[in-house]
């Protein structure tokens, strides 16, 4: 912006005939710039096609949060706790004690055993030898595998099996309470112990579908297979990213049709679509070069980039058509369009980019990636839209039909614009403001119920009626288990993790938590010790207690599950099973744990939060709640500042930003009413909504100011504004809305939530700019003062 004329105090809007430096530079080197674009697109486009889906768990969690730091520090010791799949094999008619069922179960057991990634020694089903029944006898213990050695599928051996199951303690764990299904429990290796390669979740999940679910449901029509586990969930998410390709196609087609309807010009349609797609390729290619993949969040960014590209392209097409209609040739029309739009266009796009970049302050990598991806995308839109788009148009020009459309259209629509210009009328404006205040009140009222975190049962990333979540519900209903686990890690000096004091303290914490609302049950080494001490005392429940005698404790935990003690016995977890993962539930529980830790941590034992899915969610919720206000402040701050720099008036800033604020509040109210919490997925929506939503205000206000400075009355100036840019602004809102609306059909729940909310924000910000901005202008702007100031500057 080193325009010398600006420095002399001339307002860019009052000197439209000026030929800025940028314009000269671009239009004097048209061919070179086009060739450069071609080469850049070729290079980055090639890279864009190589970009890989990436649903890394770590990127979705706040790595700096103390809970997560604790979790990752102890990750090797806790590994076996979290990563497993459970495959419930359900029989539809009859119960599990049939020859056919047991045969199918056997085959599935074998199949799972050979799946790549399964920790075979930990595999448990009725058919594995580690699933046993035990009985106390006068001589000690007596036991055997649940499936009798003599099993031959006969009624007698099935009856024996039934007996063994009943005395095995597996009912509710491996066998459903109603004996209509059993579980194949398969712990997984995060890294292949032989090759060291990380587990490919997508591939593993596909194998579960093909080799287990499809195969055995087809083979034995009497069984139905339900699969849950982190690996399956991630697999389904990766699968879900794939469906995005369809949305992309549909979005492009819809946008193209709409654009043609708007411009009635083939070139005016295809060029913006083409340049916007180029922007997407440039963005994706750059991401790849920077080492990013596409996760379920950042996969949405290309849609935004495309929509932003189109919506700003529309402004260009509109301006060129208007100029061409005045009789200018293609190059001149393009030049004039550039001159009129490069400041508001750049401002709008820069505020988009900065709006996104405020997301960087949230310490969750996917959100940061999203910010980076969107920021890069918008940066590219600035050059594809303001440079590439304009230059291409300068060569091919806009078709006659397009020009005619603009000419006819302008006159025909005048009456409509005339009516709408009454939004700036002194009689109408107060009513508008009153409505806005009522809307604000309602918004604030409903927004009180806005919750942090995920509110639905099951895996929140996926839809409630998704296969995964129905499977999950099946397992929760039929087995004594909860999908929401908070893990408290208890650190002790080396070899001290089984000391009486440690077990006693864990037991005390567990009892505290079991008496906390929202906690279903809990488990730790203390329970193992109590139950085995009981068992060692001939199964007598009167011995159900942690012994003070360390020798007895040691004997009692000799065969404790490996996940409950790390190798040097310095860490042991307390597993807390929760009724749900609502933010309040998590908060209550972590508060209790923290209070307990403060009161009871000593050199013997330190209680650390937190691992488990509920631990991660608690940490995420905390980060999001504390980041939310900061982010809002930043995004509004940045947008306001940019507007202030451009328009040099606080009143102008208010006119533009107040409607955005109203939309933000209404958006939160809608979230509260429709049960969408503030979470990793919805937090960026506000930043995106505000960052992009401000564009409308900028385009409208810049025109409005221009006409006011020409000496027109407010209503008259607004009429002219609408005439020249109203259609483009409305169209922009619709295009942006279209860009995200297809996400609503995504199998991934948070994408659907984002789509829904962004759709609302984009459209409503547009309404706010057209309806509320002029009403605010009526109260806030002082046209005479503005004129006087402009004259004085001259």
């Amino acid at each position: 912006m080193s325009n010398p004329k600006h420095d002399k105090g001339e307002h860019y809007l009052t000197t439209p005939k000026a030929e800025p430096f940028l314009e000269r530079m671009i239009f004097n080197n048209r061919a070179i710039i086009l060739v450069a674009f071609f080469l850049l697109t070729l290079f980055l486009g090639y890279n864009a096609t190589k970009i890989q889906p990436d649903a890394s768990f770590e990127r979705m969690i706040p790595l700096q949060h103390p809970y997560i730091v604790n979790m990752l520090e102890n990750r090797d010791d806790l590994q076996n706790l979290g990563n497993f799949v459970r495959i419930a094999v359900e029989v539809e008619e009859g119960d599990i004690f049939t020859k056919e069922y047991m045969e199918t179960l056997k085959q599935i057991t074998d199949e799972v055993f050979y799946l790549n990634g399964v920790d075979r020694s930990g595999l448990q089903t009725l058919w594995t030898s580690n699933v046993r029944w035990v009985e106390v006898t006068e001589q000690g213990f007596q036991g055997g595998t649940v499936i009798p050695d003599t099993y031959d599928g006969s009624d007698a051996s099935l009856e024996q099996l039934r007996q063994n199951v009943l005395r095995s303690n597996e009912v509710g764990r491996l066998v459903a309470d109603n004996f209509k299904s059993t579980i194949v429990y398969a712990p997984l290796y995060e890294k292949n112990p032989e090759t060291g390669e990380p587990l490919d979740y997508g591939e593993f999940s596909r194998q579960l579908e093909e080799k287990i679910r499809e195969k055995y449901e087809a083979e034995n029509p009497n069984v139905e297979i339900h699969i849950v586990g982190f690996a399956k969930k991630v697999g389904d998410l990766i699968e879900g990213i794939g469906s995005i390709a369809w949305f992309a196609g549909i979005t492009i087609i819809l946008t193209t049709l709409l654009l043609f309807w708007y411009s009635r010009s083939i070139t005016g349609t295809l060029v913006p679509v083409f340049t916007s797609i180029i922007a997407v390729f440039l963005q994706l290619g750059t991401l790849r070069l920077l080492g990013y993949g596409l996760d379920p969040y950042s996969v949405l960014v290309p849609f935004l980039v495309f929509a932003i590209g189109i919506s700003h392209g529309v402004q260009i097409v509109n301006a060129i058509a208007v100029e061409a209609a005045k009789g200018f040739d293609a190059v001149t029309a393009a030049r004039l369009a550039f001159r009129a739009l490069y400041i508001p266009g750049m401002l709008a796009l820069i505020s988009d980019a900065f709006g996104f970049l405020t997301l960087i302050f949230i310490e969750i990598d996917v959100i940061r990636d999203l910010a980076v991806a969107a920021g890069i995308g918008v940066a590219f839109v600035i050059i594809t839209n303001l440079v590439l788009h304009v230059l291409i148009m300068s060569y091919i020009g806009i078709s006659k039909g397009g020009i005619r459309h603009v000419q006819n259209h302008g006159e025909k629509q005048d009456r409509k614009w005339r009516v709408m210009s009454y939004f700036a009328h002194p009689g109408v404006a107060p009513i508008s403001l009153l409505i806005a205040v009522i809307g604000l009140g309602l918004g604030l009222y409903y927004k009180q119920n806005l919750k942090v975190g995920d509110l639905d049962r099951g895996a929140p990333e996926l839809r409630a009626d998704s296969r995964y979540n129905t499977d999950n519900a099946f397992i929760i209903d039929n087995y004594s288990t909860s999908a929401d686990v908070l893990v408290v890690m208890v650190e002790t000096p080396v070899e001290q993790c089984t000391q009486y004091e440690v077990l006693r303290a864990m037991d005390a914490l567990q009892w505290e938590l079991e008496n906390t609302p929202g906690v279903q049950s809990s488990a730790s080494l203390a329970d193992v010790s109590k139950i085995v001490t009981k068992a060692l005392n001939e199964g007598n429940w009167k011995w159900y207690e942690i012994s003070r005698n360390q020798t007895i404790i040691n004997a009692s935990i000799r065969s404790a599950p490996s996940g409950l003690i790390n190798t040097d016995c310095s860490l042991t977890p307390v597993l807390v099973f929760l009724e749900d993962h609502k933010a309040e539930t998590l908060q209550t529980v972590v508060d209790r744990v923290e209070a307990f830790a403060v009161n009871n941590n000593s050199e013997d034992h330190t209680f650390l939060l937190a691992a488990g899915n509920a631990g991660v969610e608690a940490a995420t919720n905390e980060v999001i709640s504390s980041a939310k206000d900061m982010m809002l402040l930043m995004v509004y701050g940045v947008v306001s500042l940019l507007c202030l720099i451009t328009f040099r008036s606080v009143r102008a800033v208010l006119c533009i930003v107040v409607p955005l604020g109203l939309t933000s509040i209404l958006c939160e109210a809608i979230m509260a009413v429709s049960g969408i919490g503030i979470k990793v997925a919805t937090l960026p929506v506000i930043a995106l909504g505000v960052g992009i939503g401000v564009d409308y205000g900028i385009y409208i206000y810049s025109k409005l100011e221009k006409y006011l400075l020409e000496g027109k009355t407010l209503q008259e100036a607004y009429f002219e504004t609408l005439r020249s840019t109203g259609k483009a602004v409305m169209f922009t809102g619709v295009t942006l809305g279209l860009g995200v609306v297809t996400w609503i059909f995504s199998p991934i729940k948070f994408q659907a939530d984002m789509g829904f909310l962004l759709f609302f924000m984009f459209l409503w910000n547009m309404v706010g700019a057209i309806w509320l901005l002029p009403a605010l202008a009526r109260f806030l702007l002082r046209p005479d003062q503005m004129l006087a100031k402009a004259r004085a500057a001259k």
Partner: protein
Amino acid sequence: MAKRLMCKTLGAVCLGLSMVWSAPAAFALADVIETPARPTDLAPERLLNDVTKAGDRIVAVGERGHIIYSDDEGQSWTQSDVPVSVTLTGVDFGSDTQGWAVGHSGVILHSEDAGETWKLQLTGVQALEIAIQTKEDQAAAMEERIEAAPEAEKGDLEWALDDILFTMENMQSDLDIGPVNPLLDVWFENDNHGFVVGAYGMILRTTDGGESWQDWAPRIDNATNFHLNGVTQITGGALVVVGESGQIHVSVDGGQTWERRESPYEGSLFGVIGTGQVNEILAFGLRGNMLFSSDLGKTWRVVPSTADATLNDGTVVDDGRIILVGNGGVVLTSSNGAESFREYFRSDREGVMSVVPVSGTGLLIVGEGGATITDARGKNLQ
């Protein structure tokens, strides 16, 4: 640092702790025998080990120092004030208001208000100290005997002295850890006279309502210190104690002297009841073994049973039926004076630890899953 801070803030507790015994290291948390049972709605749903009647009131004890009572035959429960949070194992009332409960860490609790509030009368530390005192007395007596004995007998007597000293050392090292051993059952005749029995042959008697306790182990023929699991009075007034390794001890003089009976079963016996007929004893235990005697244990008959689940406790209903309960949800009923039993397995298969009759023909059972009202067979009422 943290420890000192804790001791400052919980000064009284730490002080109390060091008064009970000198702990090897200060705990951040108060000891379980210093921690009152937490008031909780969960108490009636969690492990309960014993249940008894105090007049019309039903009182049950269980894990984490839970004592609950019901004045409507188990429909609703109130949790008592209990100063400890150890697993409690037995409860008995000498009268409608005076009751005693026992449990881990060797605790004996006493209530004077029909079970509403409880006070700690004795801990395992004191129990051990009493037992050590006995051993010291025995050792002193033995030393005197050795002194006086002819040379030929001295060798044997010195062996015996070594045994006593060895046992005493064991007790001393237990004491260094703390109150390690649990009491397992309690019986009171009236407001003054009662017995408690427990792990490793522990048996104590009081004649002053628990103000003081005497070590009764020397009067029991249990040289190997096997667990004593149950104590009761049978119809006719005799006292019976059963325990590990098929032990059956009978006293016909109100507990002054005890005689060990020949047992046809070598496994653990967990409980013993009278049948309502004079001098009849029904003892039971591991894997569903039941022993019946009609002559104060001089002769025994093994009661046939197909249910091989461990039996924990029993009761006799007004109409004379005998009910036994045990692990795996087993409920046995005999209408012919323990001649034979009809078995029923409860559908939840959870262990049942104790049972009392309630009005009509119903039962109130307690165990792994808390307290439950059932029909005469042990099946849940809807």
